[in-house]
């Protein structure tokens, strides 16, 4: 086999900049964003955010309405550029238009309302829209579209019009469009807020599977049960990072969450109440599954 050798020589031909090799997937440094900057009635949405996200991580971004979550998410693939500070995606500054294409296929976004993202009148054409703009060869384009529609379970509906899909199917179509970019990182901005339970579970299952395969996931959410699935939680307040840490540590800190207008996940609330009555019961459980496991242990 000489594949790896030719791969090696390709790398030698175009040596990656040193900082790219060691750079985290995403790095935000001192990011400020002010809407209407210099046009009167300035609205400061982000006020100095420092954040790093490693390849393959799963983080949740939570915070009150108006804390800057969506603005922050839109900085992660250059949809917005900071009014001060820097965002690097694998070492590439999002401020530099020359990097835009590379950045957009490294970090893909899915929003709350799929209808703002669906463009074409045929499912498979819509999925192909993003990668088409990358100028891929036809065979690869086809392969990516097939794969993305397969992953989200819409392969059987590929010739349909998005108009004739249900709300949950349209959100999965928006997800397919993002996946067809083969991103290293998927940013979900309240992507399941409008879905019913079945739709939400379907998206969670797909995203969980892709994360297992190494994709980084950034979930912006109001749903604490969804946040509980992440490995790390970032809490925004008034445009700044109020706290970040392991999910279990952040989402079980009742006093801190309350101060920021947030809830504990429902299972955590139950665990805390049980702990108050039976101190030996663990207070720091996050999911119904953990709660059940602990109760089974107790009954053994």
């Amino acid at each position, binding site marked *: 086999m000489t594949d790896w050798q030719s791969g090696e020589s390709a790398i030698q031909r175009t040596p990656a900049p040193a900082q790219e090799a060691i750079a985290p997937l995403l790095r935000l440094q001192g990011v400020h964003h002010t809407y209407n900057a210099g046009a009167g009635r300035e609205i400061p949405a982000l006020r100095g955010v420092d954040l790093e996200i490693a390849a393959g991580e799963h983080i949740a971004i939570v915070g009150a*309405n108006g804390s800057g979550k969506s603005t922050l998410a839109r900085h992660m693939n250059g949809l917005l550029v900071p009014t001060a500070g820097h965002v690097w995606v694998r070492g590439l500054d999002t401020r530099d238009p020359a990097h835009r294409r590379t950045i957009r296929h490294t970090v893909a976004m899915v929003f709350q309302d799929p209808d703002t993202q669906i463009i074409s009148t045929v499912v498979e054409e819509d999925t192909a829209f993003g990668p088409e703009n990358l100028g891929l060869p036809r065979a690869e384009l086809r392969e990516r579209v097939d794969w993305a529609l397969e992953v989200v379970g819409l392969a059987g509906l590929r010739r349909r019009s998005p108009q004739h899909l249900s709300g949950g199917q349209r959100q999965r179509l928006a997800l397919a469009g993002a996946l067809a970019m083969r991103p290293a990182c998927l940013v979900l901005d309240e992507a399941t807020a409008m879905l019913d*339970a*079945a739709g939400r579970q379907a998206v969670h299952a797909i995203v969980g599977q892709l994360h297992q395969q190494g994709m980084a996931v950034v979930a912006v959410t109001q749903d604490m049960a969804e946040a509980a699935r992440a490995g790390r939680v970032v809490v925004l307040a008034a445009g700044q990072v109020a706290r970040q840490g392991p999910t*279990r540590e952040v989402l079980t800190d009742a006093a801190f969450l309350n101060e920021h207008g947030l809830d504990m996940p429902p299972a955590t609330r*139950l665990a805390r109440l*049980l702990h108050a009555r039976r101190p*030996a019961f663990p207070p720091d459980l996050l999911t*119904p599954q953990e709660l059940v*496991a602990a109760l089974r*242990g107790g009954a053994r």
Partner: protein
Amino acid sequence: MSAPLIAVRGLEYTYRPGTPFATAALRGISFAVYPGEVVGIIGPTGSGKSTLLQHLDGLLRPQAGTVRVGDLDLADRATDLRAVRTRVALLFQNPEDQLFEQYVADDVAYGPLQLGLPRDEVRARVRRAMAAVGLPAEVYGDRLTQGLSGGERRRAALAGVLALEPQVLVLDEPTVGLDPRGRHELIALLQDWRCQADRAIVWASHAMDEVALLADRVVVLDEGRVALEGTAREVFGRDAALAALGLEAPAVRQVLGALVQAGLLPPSDALTVEEAVPLLESLVGQSDLGETAVPTVSAS
């Protein structure tokens, strides 16, 4: 029992009837709303919830069947819709998107002005409605609608329908997109609002925990029909039937359900955290619970 405020009988509605794109949204719905109750409407995406709600204030006219608001027949083209809307007010999904006046008080005044009320009466109503949603007119009346936070904008939109001083408030996913504090505030003020005699709320939602907390009676829609109906306790006790419809149980019932399946608890109709904790506590109490009996969860 007193006479219903709203009575729906055999209601049918098809979008684009008589075309190849005809889609039946409602296929014979009957239910009633009585004074003093909160009726929760749940069902998967596309089950007809929004279409049904739009019939309750006359936004849509029945194609078959009847909708009566008190003595007003909404199928009758001669019925004055302004009279209907003094009794039933509908708050759309994401209503803050539809604030269009520059100043908050003007937006709240829009509905009552459309009813042709005298100026002094409008002014008094705006004042009452803004106080009820926690945006007192003295403080918020002259604020720019665009300058309000997401939660404040939602409450301003609610003030706009409260100023119509209806008997029945019809809410389509009123808490979607609000942060936990915003949700708690909205729920508390709606509970206050309906405390007055003869008022009722119709509440469509995907948030099962909120429906379980608030609704006296729950109507479950599926494919344009009433699939289940009963008290919140009765409906949420039908775990299997809800799961078959792709609906999620409230968080408490998810935990209880898993424990019942594991053979650790007998089935129960507990719905709230307060009801669940004693059941779970008894389970913890079955063993000599020492530190070692409880699986400790390591930080992830």
